[in-house]
């Protein structure tokens, strides 16, 4: 109509020219256009037309249903007793149907929302949907269906007036399955399940089913009003039970509850209340439940699930409920015990050992509760008074036996583990210790003590699951969908390391420290592995053992290399690497733990390095004071060392030149050593070891002897010189030091030493 071809041509300002222009164009309008102005133009609201059509369609449906059950070949009403109730309800609702206001409200919501729904176009026949609304209005709809789950955008049922707005506010997509990820669990794993287990479920959830099955579902399970209720219904008003006219809303579950139902079914768990209702394994449908039972147990019962489950399972065969519960929690006394008819809950998903355990318990509990006095528990007579109290306690056993079983089942499931040593190390160790203790006690001849009931945790076989990303047939290439299991690189982040020039000294130091920390961590992992080899050795087969040993040796070598720094040549020129590790608290502890695994030469090497740099280490250790942890492993190492090594050790410790005529005025090295607890203790240890060797071994070489003597002379001289106050307190004073010193100094000096170093027993 307008002459302007594009937006730019339109005048931005409204000026008179434009108006004039518009006026001119009016004249160009085809006044004779029939469709717009003439007879063809029907001034009609398309919505209203739609409503009218809908009305027309509904009337035959409603009238059809009024004809009665027998005419319906779909077997709408299987239960003749309830026909009257149904008819009454239908009558009432039909009159409401006639009411145009309500119809309008109903229909506007319907068609208006359907085009909005993404998937509704798939289920094209709105007629079928409409037809279903008919029976829906008359009966209470079973709470959930596949469609509801698969079509999160499906409009709420017409009788939704009482739904609170918050439910509608829930994001519709919250439970829609996303291709490429595992099925969504809208339900946290621990929630009480509302559904019985249906193993072949998952596929059916994700693949939407055609509509007609839903209708069949409807017509198959037309329970009387009172029996078929959703939890919503229960929550709203239990007083409506038996009330033929539902002025409450048709029970559409909240999104979450729907998801819960299906999540529960998916997970294949059953709430304790479900145990009662499952009269067999998957195939059989859950019988409709006594409404009185539902009264007291809001939120736990899932009667509508019956129809739902049966839909997937087997041919319909609604047996009566096997369980007759007295109504109300108040009367939950012993009579609530499960009836003699054995129902077998569906435990196929459980591990066989677990299942056995569970059944054992159930049988035990049944036998226990049948006998009133029965308490198979540990505390015999003392219990009886409590038992009596429990009997008098009217609120006892609010938590049913099966509910307790259910909770313990969950707890057992949490204990499932493929590698108990990895998952539950401390518990395993604790129990091993306990067993060893009790075994030791048995050995002493006391006989087996009271049988400690052991917890048998279910063992789950380790299964390797390799994740294969989703592939479509016939498509070229792979899907570019990323999920938790299949992550994709989203950002091209490139790591650039700065050049050396830019870094300041501080940063270099920091980096070096970081590298050291990394080395320590790696070595620690190796250490833990090595420590674990003993256990693995015991568990392994004969053939594997050499390989294990080899691995262990290799790891030890690696550890040592890590400690000392991998030197290209034979000798290790610098202790630098080792010193770095020793400066860190964790490093010291690491060395202490590694020492037992090293060979004597390697261990001696470590010792020497420590002794050589002891003052430096002492300075660094001032805050941590962790060095004494090294004393015990050092002493073990010393025990195996020959005299020569010991001599050089002393030399390193004291830092006295081998053959100096007179020592320097102040020997800072030795002073520092003597002033530190660790240093002094180490010195004592070494000296004591030397003394041992001297006194025991008569075949020592003369050379070494001389060396030793000289060193000792010098050492004692130093010791005498140092003021007593400056001396540290050693961890332990070996007993043979006195005899050691007695060799090299005269009596007077010996006495001095004695008092100074508190070498006499009884003082310390």
């Amino acid at each position, binding site marked *: 109509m307008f002459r302007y071809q594009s937006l730019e041509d339109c005048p931005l300002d409204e000026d008179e020219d434009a108006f004039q222009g518009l006026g001119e164009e009016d004249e160009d309008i085809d006044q004779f256009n029939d469709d717009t102005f003439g007879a063809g133009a029907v001034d009609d609201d398309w919505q209203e037309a739609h409503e009218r059509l809908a009305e027309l369609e509904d009337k035959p449906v409603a009238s059809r249903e009024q004809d009665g059950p027998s005419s319906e070949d779909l077997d709408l009403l299987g239960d003749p007793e309830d026909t009257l109730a149904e008819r009454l309800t239908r009558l009432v609702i039909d009159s409401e149907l006639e009411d145009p206001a309500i119809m309008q409200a109903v229909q506007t919501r319907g068609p208006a929302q359907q085009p909005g729904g993404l998937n509704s176009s798939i289920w094209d026949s709105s007629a079928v949907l409409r037809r279903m609304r008919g029976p829906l209005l008359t009966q209470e709809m079973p709470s959930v269906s596949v469609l509801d789950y698969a079509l999160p955008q499906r409009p709420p049922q017409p009788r939704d007036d009482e739904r609170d707005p918050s439910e509608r506010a829930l994001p519709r997509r919250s439970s829609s399955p996303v291709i490429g990820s595992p099925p969504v669990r809208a339900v946290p794993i621990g929630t009480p399940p509302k559904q019985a287990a249906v193993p072949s479920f998952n596929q059916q959830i994700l693949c939407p089913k055609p509509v007609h099955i839903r209708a069949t579902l409807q017509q198959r399970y037309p329970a009387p009003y009172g029996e078929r209720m959703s939890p919503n219904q229960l929550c709203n008003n239990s007083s409506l039970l038996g009330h033929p006219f539902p002025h409450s809303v048709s029970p559409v579950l909240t999104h979450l509850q729907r998801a819960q139902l299906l999540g529960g079914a998916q997970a294949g768990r059953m709430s304790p209340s479900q145990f009662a209702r499952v009269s067999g394994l998957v195939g059989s449908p859950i019988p409709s439940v006594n409404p009185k039972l539902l009264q007291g147990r809001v939120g736990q019962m899932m009667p509508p699930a019956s129809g739902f489950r049966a839909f997937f399972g087997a041919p319909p065969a609604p047996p009566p409920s096997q369980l007759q519960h007295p109504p109300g929690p108040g009367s939950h006394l012993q009579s609530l015990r499960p009836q003699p008819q054995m129902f077998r809950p569906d435990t196929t998903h459980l591990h066989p050992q677990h299942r056995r355990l569970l059944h054992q318990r159930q049988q035990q509990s049944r036998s226990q509760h049948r006998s009133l006095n029965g308490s198979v528990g540990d505390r015999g007579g003392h219990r009886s008074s409590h038992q009596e109290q429990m009997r008098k306690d009217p*609120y006892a056993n*609010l938590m049913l036996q099966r509910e307790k079983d259910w*909770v313990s089942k969950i*707890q057992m499931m949490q204990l499932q583990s493929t590698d108990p040593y990895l998952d539950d190390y401390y518990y395993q160790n604790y129990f091993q210790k306990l067993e060893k203790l009790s075994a030791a006690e048995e050995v002493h001849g006391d006989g087996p003590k009271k049988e400690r009931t*052991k917890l048998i945790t279910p063992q789950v076989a380790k299964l390797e699951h390799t994740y294969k990303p989703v592939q479509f047939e016939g498509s070229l290439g792979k899907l570019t969908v990323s999920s938790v299991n299949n992550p994709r690189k989203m950002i091209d982040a490139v790591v650039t390391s700065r050049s050396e020039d830019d870094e300041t000294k501080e940063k270099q130091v920091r980096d070096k420290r970081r590298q050291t920390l990394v080395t320590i961590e790696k070595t620690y992992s190796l250490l833990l592995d090595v420590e674990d080899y003993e256990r693995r050795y015991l568990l392994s087969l004969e053939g594997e053992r050499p390989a294990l040993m080899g691995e262990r040796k290799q790891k030890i070598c690696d550890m040592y290399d890590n400690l000392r720094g991998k030197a290209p040549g034979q000798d290790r020129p610098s202790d630098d690497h080792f010193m770095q590790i020793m400066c860190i608290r964790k490093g010291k502890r690491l060395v202490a733990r590694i020492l037992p695994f090293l060979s004597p030469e390697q261990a001696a090497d470590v010792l020497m390095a420590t002794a050589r740099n002891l003052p430096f280490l002492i300075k660094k250790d001032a805050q941590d004071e962790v060095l004494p942890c090294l004393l015990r492993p050092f002493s073990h190492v010393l025990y195996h060392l020959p005299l020569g090594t010991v001599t050089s050790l002393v030399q390193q410790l004291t830092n006295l030149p081998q053959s100096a005529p007179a020592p320097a005025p102040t020997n800072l090295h030795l002073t520092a050593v003597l002033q530190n607890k660790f240093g002094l203790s180490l010195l004592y240890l070494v000296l004591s070891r030397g003394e041992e060797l001297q006194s025991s071994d008569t075949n020592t070489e003369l050379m070494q002897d001389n060396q030793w003597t000289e060193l000792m002379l010098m050492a004692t001289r130093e010791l005498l010189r140092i003021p007593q106050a400056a001396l540290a307190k050693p961890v332990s004073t070996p007993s043979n030091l006195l005899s050691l010193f007695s060799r090299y100094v005269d009596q007077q000096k010996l006495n001095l030493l004695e008092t100074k170093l508190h070498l006499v027993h009884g003082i310390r």
Partner: protein
Amino acid sequence: MNYMPGTASLIQDIDKKHLVLLRDGRTLIGYLRSIDQFANLVLHQTVERIHVGKKYGDIPRGIFVVRGENVVLLGEIDLEKESDTPLQQVSIEEILEEQRVEQQAKQESEKLKVQALKERGLCVPRADTLDEY
């Protein structure tokens, strides 16, 4: 019947009188009626017991549903030994009054402490803010 020997499971504790200490410092005493896998508790005939010094007072509260994460500890009360306590029970009003007095005293001493530290140039973070982390 021995549920899960060697573990800490509340199933054996059901229908027994328990003392429950909550994270906010309240002490509840009631009959444990129901549990779940998160150790959410349902306490029946619950009484909140306030302790001040050697005195205590009980406030009847009815039925409590406690979320598991808020429980610090709980333990079964031996009904025979329950009355065997050196503490003296007083009325609710009295114990509330005592509690108020105690809170006031605490606050004042805290204020003085913070003041003293401030004078010395030190700053101690408040315990309740630490709790957030």
